[in-house]
């Protein structure tokens, strides 16, 4: 069995992360590495939840319902009672918003339909019995209503293992599904994921607060990507503005959204900003943006 972990390479402030692999050599017994999973919803419009269990177990554990952009992270020892599950069964359920005409940030309660619009299920997904990854990523991409595209373990050695399976015959080795499986037809949505802060301050270069600056939030999305095919670009980006606020007298602003990937943009008639937009992985509590008067 090969053991690897994600190694997010360094010296690249600009890119979010560059991924390579570093061999893990476990020393000191047969204890497994304590691993975790991250379920991310990079759909622009649909809400998503994941059911997960160790293959052979009876019960599924369910993540909260994730809004666009949201991520749910959990350690396998906490959710499945094992450090590194050998094989996994997964179910992904996608739900449509009821008030889809409203920006999410103005949609109190963010109600979704009572039943999923698309579901997918995988049994016996190879995991730690094949390759150990420190964090197993399961990412729901943006896809047309009624369909799902889910990318698993991207950027890890497990990705190529999965890519050889018939279930992952998508050009980007993703898992695709459509419609609703019979046994999941009436599966209700879970509660929404709890919110976390995306908060920060806008200050002048000498540290003084700058008030009444507009701050806008977008969610990250991901669609089919194939960099050999320029017609696919952009394959990732940030959606329509979902919430907006202004800085207070102390230069502070804050949004409450589930943990995830977002873009924060600053705007003002009087100032320019360094930087004018920040891509964040929330929760974040200490964003700091420099405001400079427009000459």
């Amino acid at each position: 069995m090969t053991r690897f972990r994600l190694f997010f390479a360094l010296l690249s402030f600009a890119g979010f992360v560059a991924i390579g692999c570093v061999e893990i050599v476990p020393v000191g017994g047969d204890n497994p590495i304590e691993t975790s999973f991250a379920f991310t919803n990079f759909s622009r419009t649909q809400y998503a939840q994941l059911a997960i269990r160790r293959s052979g177990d009876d019960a599924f554990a369910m993540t909260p319902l994730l809004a666009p952009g949201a991520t749910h992270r959990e350690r396998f020892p906490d959710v499945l009672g094992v450090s590194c599950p050998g094989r996994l069964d997964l179910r992904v359920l996608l739900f449509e918003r009821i008030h889809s005409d409203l920006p999410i940030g103005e949609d109190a309660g963010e109600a979704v339909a009572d039943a999923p619009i698309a579901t997918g299920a995988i049994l016996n997904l190879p995991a730690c019995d094949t390759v150990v990854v420190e964090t197993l990523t399961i990412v729901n991409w943006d896809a047309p209503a009624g369909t799902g595209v889910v990318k698993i373990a991207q950027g890890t050695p497990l990705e190529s293992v999965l890519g050889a399976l018939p279930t992952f015959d998508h050009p980007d080795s993703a898992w695709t599904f459509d419609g609703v499986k019979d046994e999941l037809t009436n599966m209700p949505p879970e509660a929404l994921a709890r919110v976390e802060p995306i908060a920060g301050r806008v200050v002048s270069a000498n540290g003084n607060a700058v008030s009444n600056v507009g701050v806008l939030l977008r969610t990250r999305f991901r669609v089919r990507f194939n960099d050999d095919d320029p017609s696919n670009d952009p394959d990732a980006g940030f959606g329509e503005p979902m919430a907006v606020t202004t800085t207070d007298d102390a230069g502070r602003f804050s949004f409450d959204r589930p943990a995830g990937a977002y873009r924060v943009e600053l705007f003002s008639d009087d100032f320019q900003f360094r930087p004018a937009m920040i891509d964040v992985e929330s929760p974040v509590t200490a964003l700091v943006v420099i405001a400079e008067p427009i000459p």
Partner: protein
Amino acid sequence: MTTCRKNRYGVGIVAVGVTLLSLLTSCIPLNDGRDTLAAAIAIPLDGVARNMVGNLASLGVIESDSTLQISAGGTNVRRVLLLRADAERESTGVMVGGAMAGMTSVYQTVRTGEHFLFVEYNAGTTVPGQTADVSVSLLNDSIERPSRQIVRVVFEDGFLTDPGLLDPVDGTAADRAFLDSIESTVRDEVLASLRNLFDQTPIDIVETDASVAGPVSTLTFSPKRVLADQNDINDAALPPADPNRPQCQVRVVFGEVLPSGTGLDPGNRNPQDDAVVYVGSFQGRGETCRTSAVTSLRSMVLTLSQTGAHEIGHLVGLHHIEQVGIMNRSATLAFQRELSFARGQIQVDRAAGNNIRSEVFPAIVQEPSTYLESIFATESSD
């Protein structure tokens, strides 16, 4: 049985204080590190010096508020860790103390449970050399653990510009002016971030000129850019392999406990030690290799504060862990999000050519809150 590959932080220091024990030694059978804690050989708590072979030994169940005296040394011994059986998982020990080799150290147990001794050898030590001279005894007197660790944070002049985050090859006058203009803001925000990270811990962050009583450790933000030696892996890392930018494959050191090569202070035995963050190491050289750090105050604050927190973690004895958290070796730059001091299995990184070889001790867990509760006098105990 398979050889246990030892961990190492950069240039290994030579263990001192060897052969300080009695000539009346007995031999503990080989435990080469592959055995689980459950199978660890027991050491009597009788103060008799013994020759221990391998990594792990059981000290048996020890009541809370007991005082242990442990001596461990040997030519190849680097550090000794005290573990307590993990309440969360079988065959796993949680780090509750430690000391450098050659020290006779006293520990106050905080909770009742089976305890273990883990001996960490110098890098490259193979099985025949994995022997330690060990004695363990229970003392009648209790000891007073320190209640706090004060860490003074120093920002050297020009920490952002000399060269700091200024690229001396292609950096512009405008870049310098901008960095100059935000220096005090960066300093204030980094301090605030460090205070936030260590809130609810026994670690107090104070400013350079703060008046404090008692021993103080120091964390310095230096403007230097420090290139790493081939074998130096103290919080050093290579940028991602990129065949289009071979000139950017420069190994640098982001920070370290001083003197260089110390790695960390197990058990926080030295409350007046120093660490440094090399701010200049976060900037590449030349247009191709430059980072965008100079355009984002948020990147600067997050990176410098989390690197500083990482080094403070080492100052009080925390190891690198495999899992994502402040003490992950690649945490500082790689994860552009706010991290915490997370539970994890201790990890050692060893240079292997141009790659980094990660070695994990799955049986040894670092739970920062448990560790800090054990080495500092806190209110909670059973």
